[in-house]
């Protein structure tokens, strides 16, 4: 009796714990969604409101009216991720491959450089970067915000790829070399196809980073044509409490693409890992 009940009991317990953890995380998006359907101008609710009365869908349109730059912000943010995410994945993948195939001092040096780069606080680079961008004539251009993609956005992504490529048997790379493939070709034809889960993970992380990047646009962009979605949201945030429904509607609009990207990438990299696991 005990033997048969304990696994199902454990399953129920696990489901309960999972649900509890999920609901803690779901509370905020739910609050955002419910709040975005409230009529602006009303005094804020006292405590939690399950369904606003009246239900008001107009806030999603209102966002574009109170902030005329909203459509510009959408265009700029889409442009930024469209360029920065693929470049990040390519550069981080390439750099990760170099680390994964390096040996001895070279390997230690590359790892040390990555870790040190990871440890430098971002704020220490604000002013130097500003000077560099100014020298290059890139201040107040979207290129200044995309630029981190040229080094893979974060050393962490590079190391993630390196870790993935390490797990590929070296004999595969050696075989490719014996057949006369250049390192670049080995990377593209052997490493990249096998590291696809990592690529999806990095693409997802890079998307989230560039999509929600607020500090760089604050520092390097100034003209109204250069506004990005996080900047637009922070402007809505200055609204007084009675207009919070408009801010929350803006937040919903910004969150939806990130959620979709996460769901797509998550499915892609989870299934790949499983199929990779069964093959070996």
């Amino acid at each position: 009796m005990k033997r048969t009940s304990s696994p199902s009991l454990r399953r129920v317990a696990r489901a309960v714990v999972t649900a509890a953890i999920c609901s803690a995380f779901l509370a905020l998006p739910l609050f955002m969604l419910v709040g975005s359907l409230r009529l602006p101008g009303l005094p804020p609710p006292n405590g939690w409101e399950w369904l606003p009365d009246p239900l008001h869908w107009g806030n999603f349109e209102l966002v574009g009216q109170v902030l005329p730059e909203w459509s510009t912000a959408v265009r700029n943010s889409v442009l930024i991720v469209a360029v920065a995410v693929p470049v990040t994945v390519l550069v981080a993948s390439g750099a990760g491959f170099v680390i994964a195939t390096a040996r001895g001092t070279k390997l230690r040096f590359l790892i040390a450089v990555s870790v040190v780069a990871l440890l430098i606080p971002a704020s220490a680079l604000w002013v130097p970067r500003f000077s560099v961008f100014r020298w290059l004539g890139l201040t107040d251009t979207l290129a200044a915000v995309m630029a981190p993609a040229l080094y893979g956005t974060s050393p962490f992504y590079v190391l993630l790829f390196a870790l993935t490529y390490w797990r590929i048997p070296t004999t595969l790379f050696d075989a490719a070399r014996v057949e006369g493939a250049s390192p670049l070709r080995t990377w593209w034809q052997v490493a990249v196809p096998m590291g696809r889960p990592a690529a999806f993970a990095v693409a997802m992380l890079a998307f989230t980073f560039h999509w929600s990047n607020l500090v760089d646009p604050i520092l390097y962009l100034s003209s109204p044509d250069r506004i990005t979605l996080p900047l637009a949201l922070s402007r809505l945030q200055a609204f007084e409490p009675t207009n919070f429904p408009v801010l929350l509607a803006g937040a919903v609009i910004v969150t939806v693409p990130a959620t979709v990207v996460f769901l797509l990438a998550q499915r892609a990299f989870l299934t790949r890992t499983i199929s990779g696991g069964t093959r070996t």
Partner: protein
Amino acid sequence: MKKQSIASVVLAVMLAGSMTIGTDRATATTRAGGGTTVLRFQFAGEPEDAAVYDLLIEAFEKGRPKIDVEPTVYGSKGDLIQSLITSFAGGAPPDVFLLNYREYSQFVTRGAIAPIGPRLDEQGVDLDEYFRQPLRAFTFDGKLQCLPQNVSSLVVYWNRVLFERAGLEPPAPGWTWEEFRQTAIALTGGGLHGLGVEASLPRLAPFVWGAGGEVVDDTERPTRFTLDTPEAREALEFLVGLVRDDGVVPSEVDLAAQDLETRFTAGKLGMFLSSRKDVPAFREVTGLDWDVAPLPVGSEHATLLHSDGFCLARDGDHPDAAAKFAAFAAGRAGQGILSLGGRTVPSLRSVANSPSFLDPTSPPDGDQVFLDGIKIMRRTPVIPTWPEIEERVDEILTRAFYEPGYTIDDAIAAIAAETRELFEEAAAER
């Protein structure tokens, strides 16, 4: 073949990216090349503020086809200051920016601000037309650094419905601390609080002056806080007593759930201490019936100056156009437009006494309270380390308000100890 194609894809993407981004920029420079000056103006504010500034800029550009003002609006003051510090350090600051008098001096000592005073004659600005208090606050190193746009004071916002429900008379001018306290007590109960007051130096200071005390030893060249005098102590005890003994102020837990401004708009606060800045917000709330009253009077009448000024960057590319814009924005036409937005108390006497400010059709009815406040207005010192000093003091005051066992003596001692170095640092920079 393969590697070339990959490399060319990467390059093409980057180039395409930078080219589409570059085109707008290129047109901007050709515009400038065609004799148009692009003037960059940065400030922090709400979307409604931004709309008012758009009107102002439009009015300015109308008569000046060769100047194109490009505003950058930040959602918070912190974002604005972070951006200013970086762009100054990087050598490409905006031409004009709006700062509070409590914050601008750190930019003066860093050599970032070009004093506006010497440029005002050529712009036809007569400083005698401005209220003196904000002009003095924006004077540093003997020069007028920025041109004040407004002259707000600390007032009591009060909810008419809650007053009537509690059977209370509207606050009368010259009301005493004790009357204020009794009113707050009468308004408290049933989930409502009588008074909203932040644990901060700008809220404490007018009470210290009202008790006949001083906040610092010398407003011009401060070396230390003087909160240990009997008068200053009395003010601290009064405020802390309202929180701890009378329980008329929302607790820290209450505040974490809903801040003071939100509570006032939701009709859960009888009175709320703030400057003019909340007027546009409260005007928009449907069903909120409110007005403003002067601060209660201790042994003296006093309130605190709140003022923002237009500052010019020292290394700006277009000093003349920048001065012209600042003079227009803080001039009669500019202040007229800004005061319609409701947020500012005009620093120009003529605009302050005009219908565009004293508009009888929109609340508060007590606009005159803000003008009466000017006569009894005082200010905190203008020194570069002041923002940091305020930050430390606010933390300590929060503990004095809410932390069990943290006494007023603890607070006074901590304020003295934690700010000593910051005063010394400021003195050394002079």
